[in-house]
């Protein structure tokens, strides 16, 4: 790219921004001048329509196209639901379905439990801020970055060579043989899940810590006067008090986990029986040249995420009603 080309590009950006501003300005002007009689209606249309149109172009249309595409094979012949039959019968895709289930069960539970325990232990301690920042830090690292870090943790070198992976170094210190962690089926899926848990625990901890602080002190004190021990207070006062936040945390992490792709692709590329739905979807659509199968997997993923999203929204709405 030369300077002239760059200037040209900048000019284009400026023109585009100006055009955008002009359109918005015109729209606002027209809405303002709308006939008095049905002003509300015009205002509604004027403000909702742009978002609505973008939503249709960017979400509804692709969703419909994906659904249609899932009924065709690579050559463009209509094959009905064969792609879905394939998804539920091929060993390859069955493995990714199974792994997705393992991911979606283990990750939210582990992240939430660890995050909650941590939040409770550091609650009102000295330096709470710093302890929190420490665990929250991984949230700031991208999935690919985290995967590369953990790939080094799991790195394998033969016994004769110097270990560069911390995990195998520990094993060697303890007198063991280095292990190919990422190739050890089926434990390798768990090693990948640990990366996700490492990232998501910070999120769970921060949200739950805030919720714990929201539990009214009067109730805690009343329970204390009633002679409860710490465990009973936690189980019967804190937990019911933060129930709403717990649900939000679990569902949010579940949704993120269902869509997990970066970690698997970076660390094993789906080899060694570690593939998950999103990874298999990408592989089929873009590498194997089978967009129909990729679309079918995308739809399955969509159907799996949908109930969790609906549940999440309903819980949030109920909470708002209580407040």
């Amino acid at each position: 790219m030369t300077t002239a080309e760059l200037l040209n590009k900048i000019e284009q950006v400026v023109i585009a921004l100006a055009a955008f501003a002009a359109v918005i300005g015109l729209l606002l002007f027209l809405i303002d001048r709308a006939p008095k009689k049905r002003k509300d209606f015009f205002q509604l249309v004027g403000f909702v329509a742009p978002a609505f149109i973008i939503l249709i172009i960017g979400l509804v249309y692709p969703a419909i196209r994906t659904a249609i595409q899932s009924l065709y094979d690579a050559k463009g012949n209509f094959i009905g639901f064969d792609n879905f039959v394939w998804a539920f019968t091929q060993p390859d895709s069955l493995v990714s379905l199974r792994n997705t289930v393992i991911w979606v069960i283990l990750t939210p539970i582990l992240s939430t439990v660890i995050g909650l325990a941590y939040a409770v232990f550091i609650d009102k301690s000295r330096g709470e801020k710093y302890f929190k920042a420490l665990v929250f830090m991984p949230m700031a690292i991208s999935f690919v970055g985290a995967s590369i870090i953990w790939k080094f943790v799991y790195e394998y070198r033969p016994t004769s060579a110097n270990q560069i992976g911390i995990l195998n170094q520990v094993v060697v210190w303890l007198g063991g043989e280095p292990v190919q962690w990422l190739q050890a089926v089926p434990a390798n899926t768990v090693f990948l899940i640990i990366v996700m848990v490492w990232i998501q625990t910070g999120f769970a901890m921060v949200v739950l810590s805030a919720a714990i602080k929201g539990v009214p002190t009067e109730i805690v004190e009343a329970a204390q006067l009633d002679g409860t021990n710490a465990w009973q207070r936690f189980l019967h006062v804190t937990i019911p008090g933060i129930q709403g936040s717990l649900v939000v945390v679990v569902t949010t992490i579940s949704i993120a986990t269902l869509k997990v792709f970066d970690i698997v692709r970076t660390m094993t590329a789906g080899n060694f029986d570690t593939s998950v739905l999103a990874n298999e979807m990408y592989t089929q659509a873009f590498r194997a040249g089978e967009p129909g199968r990729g679309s079918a997997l995308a739809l399955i993923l969509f159907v799996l995420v949908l109930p969790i999203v609906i549940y999440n929204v309903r819980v949030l709405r109920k909470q708002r009603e209580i407040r």
Partner: protein
Amino acid sequence: MRITRAKRVIIPLAGVAAVALALTGCTGDTPASSSGTAAAGCEDYADYGTFTGSPTVNIYGTIVDVEADQLNQSWTDFEKCTGITIKYEGSQEFETQINVRAQGGNPPDLAIFPQPGLLASMVAGGYIKTPAQSVEDNVDKNWSADWKTYGTVDGTFYAAPLMASVKGYIWYSPAFFKDNGYTIPTTLDELTSLTAKIAADGKVKPWCAGFSSGEASGWPGTDWIEDTVLRQSGAQVYDDWTTNKVKFTDPQITKAFDYVGNILKNPAYVNGGFGDVTSINSTTFQDAGLPILQDQCAMMHQASFYEAQWPEGTTVAPDGDVYGFLMPPATAGGQQAVTGGGEMVGAFKTSDEITAVQTYLSSALWANNRVSIGGVISANKGLDPNNAKSPLAVDSIKILQDPNTTFRFDASDLMPAAVGSNSFWKGIVNWINGDDTQTVTTFIQSTWPQ
């Protein structure tokens, strides 16, 4: 902090200025080259004619970075003498983007296809124009019939070959071989017995290998299998295998898996410098050969382009630190058969200047120009092997030009993507990780599109 009105303007302005400054750093301004349009030295280019009005020909391909610069360098004289400007654009997303551009009505004039299959699908879409007679004449004169078929779809010739690579080299240390009295094998059986001998001597593991390559993990293993199939069962079986007439589960294919498996899945034979058999999957293909330099492993199977992977200062020569011998034929003195890769140049439009460029790229003149710059080879018969920059490249060119050599394109590039760039790779990874040949070949066969 309260922000004054002046500051409110200055801060974003400063931001914009900073961004603009930073972006200027990204531009690659080069001083315009002095255009000494001397007609001297243009005798070779007289046949291509001279064009007025400086027409431009756009070329799109997968070649990027240094190799793209070298490509541009290979036609500077041509541009000077003919008045045609060639604008080359390289992209690693070529394989998907070329579809998008062709369908969107925005194709380049010429495209450099790295796989015959992709060219064929573009031809099927009706996008590729048949080249002028001068291009076909060049191909008939400069390339073997094998090569012409890779640019031919359903009997019609569409694209001329460009560059090439030879797969199936076995890298070794000449000094290590000499010190231990090992000789280069001339048959596959001798390769097996050499392997056994090195293992029995117990100094090093005979082989090292690395199949890890991100999402393409496993491909070096598919090359192993392809080389073995071509040598054991011949070109006809190989061709039928790429079109699914011979199945993966066929004994002629499983025989190749067994041969390679005897080496790669035998803990006594691998993986020099890296560990046990499964370490093949965790070692990147770039690292795979490095233990040869430390005398930790004796041999490694990889294409001619592995030459670029040796660390700086390594002498690649028959009497140097490392060198490669070609995987031997099945029987002694048998006809040499090699697998490899290459590019095909297809045209999306027709015009006199495009024809001129296409003719030039298929000429011996271009091949000599490009190979002299270094780094690549070509199967062009008009190419003088001595123009190549390294002994191995000279060797590879001689093999490609030898009329007795059977050349076959990398089979996984010819198979449908669902197999050639997915299940074959994955199958090899599982195979190294412990699955048996029967399971793996059945799996790969089951993914062949119906």
